[in-house]
């Protein structure tokens, strides 16, 4: 990147590192941090949406819908999440391809599962065999987002379900007394009030979501863990102009520090939000704030 980098062998320690840390592959490494942040930014709202649907389903008056909601929460919570990550990536991919296969190639007679293979017609492949490299990467990332959202949606559903039940019962009864329908009560009374109760659980979930992002690596996305392993490994002068020993330990130390910093910042920000939200609320936290001010 810098002009003096053309011959790294002659550089001093500082110059060498400034060149080493700004070469092309390191740029991909830094880009993968953006990927992680992007995943968080997309997954969090989508998971919240799934969670909302799950919570709505599990308190529905229709029995099968209630079973669906409760089953969704119970199954995802009872099994190691990493198993879900490994499962969903293949299962979702096959589901999409199978659906496209049914629609695009109705004349196809061979079975889709042949022994140990999963074969769909070429038009149904996702992404198409002819599509460029970035399409494949985007598709992989997209699958990862859905997987994360599905798993964390169940956790969020659990939190929101609890929050909905925490809203004082008289509030809902009052709404009914005013002649509101079931739907109106839900949207106008229950939903606006539940957030205060949901926030501690949701902020906990956010921390957990941050700490789950390295699992992207298992989903085949080229994330920070992938690059740390790649870049840290021993490099000889035959393949690179920056030969070094096994530095993977230092790369992972850097990741460790990155995550520690990230969780610390989140903690501080979430604390502030909680303080603002409890302001003036008839809860213990709000009462404590009022007393402190007086």
């Amino acid at each position, binding site marked *: 990147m810098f002009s003096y980098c053309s011959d790294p062998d002659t550089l001093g320690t500082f110059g060498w590192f400034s060149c080493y840390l700004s070469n092309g592959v390191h740029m991909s490494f830094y880009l993968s941090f953006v990927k992680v942040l992007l995943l968080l930014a997309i997954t969090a709202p989508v998971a919240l949406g799934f969670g909302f649907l799950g919570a709505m389903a599990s308190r529905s008056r229709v029995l099968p819908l209630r079973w669906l909601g409760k089953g969704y929460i119970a199954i995802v919570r009872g*099994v190691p999440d990493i198993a879900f990550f*490994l499962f969903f990536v293949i299962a979702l991919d096959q589901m999409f391809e199978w659906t496209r296969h049914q629609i695009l190639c109705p004349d196809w007679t061979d079975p889709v599962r042949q022994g*140990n293979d999963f074969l769909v017609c070429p038009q149904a492949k996702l992404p198409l065999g002819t599509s460029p490299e970035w399409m494949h990467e985007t598709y992989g990332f997209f699958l990862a987002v859905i997987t994360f959202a599905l798993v964390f949606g169940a956790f969020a559903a659990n939190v929101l379900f609890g929050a909905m039940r925490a809203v004082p019962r008289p509030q809902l009864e009052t709404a009914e007394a005013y002649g509101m329908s079931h739907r109106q009560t839900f949207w106008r009374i229950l939903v606006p009030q539940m957030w205060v109760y949901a926030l501690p659980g949701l902020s906990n979930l956010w921390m957990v979501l941050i*700490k789950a992002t390295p699992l992207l690596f298992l989903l085949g996305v080229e994330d920070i863990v992938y690059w740390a392993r790649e870049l840290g490994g021993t490099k000889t002068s035959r393949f690179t102009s920056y030969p070094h020993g*096994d530095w993977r330990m230092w790369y*992972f130390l850097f990741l460790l520090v990155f995550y520690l910093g990230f969780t610390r910042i989140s903690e501080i920000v979430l604390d502030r939000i909680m303080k603002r939200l409890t302001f003036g609320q008839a809860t213990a936290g709000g009462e404590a704030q009022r007393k402190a001010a007086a």
Partner: protein
Amino acid sequence: MSCWQTIQDYGLRSIGIGERLLPKTDFTLCEQFTLIGSGMIWNIYFGVLALITGFFFASALAIGKASSNRLYRKPAEWFIFLFRGSPLFIQFFFAYFLFLNLKGVHPFFDPFTAAWLGALIVLFLNTSAYTAEIFYGALLSIPKGDVEAADAYGMSGWPRFRRIVWPTMLRLAWPAYTNEAIFLFHATTLVYFSGFPAWRQKGDALYYASYFADKTFNPFIPYPILAFYFIIFTLIIVGVFGLINNRLNRHLPGERRSKMRLRPNLIR
């Protein structure tokens, strides 16, 4: 090959007893059940040992964090923050490469790069930190009257801690600690996906499940089997911890006994 034969061949495969080669083609349901179940041995090994050793260290850490002496409090606080603030997955990776480097320094560190010791140490430290935070919370919520009553009986120091403070702390922390145990048990599946090599394909349950999923390209059989095993073991943990909970609360009148409420298990 009968299913009984398969169980004999692969039942203890994960610890290196029985058939050497894993099945390559024509996987039967029995083979998948047996091998994944055999992998559970490792999950149980990691879970139980880390839980037992972590329990004692966590008690010490919690007392350290609640101490008024900065010399004890600060290290405990930092330790807990370090292990709760970073992903377990990254901790595994870092520890593995750290041990790999140490191995070059001295052959004493040879066994640390193997999962049975290296990963166990990481799990031990990790669960200690999480458990210490739970115990610390419980320590702070011990009813003031209990401690005052102990003082009135002339207890102090070690007897007061052993007979009043510690049992009360355990009683209050127990429901949350049950979650932590389940949680730790689930976290053991990360071991073989985080640098630690599965030597001679001796892996844990998830290792074998993903082996089958890769080979057959069909995730719909091995992963539900894995889920089945884990749900069973989760229920066993809940049962055992429930019994201990009953014992810890046996002096309380019936209605005041806290019912075990199980809260979500999340990734760390």
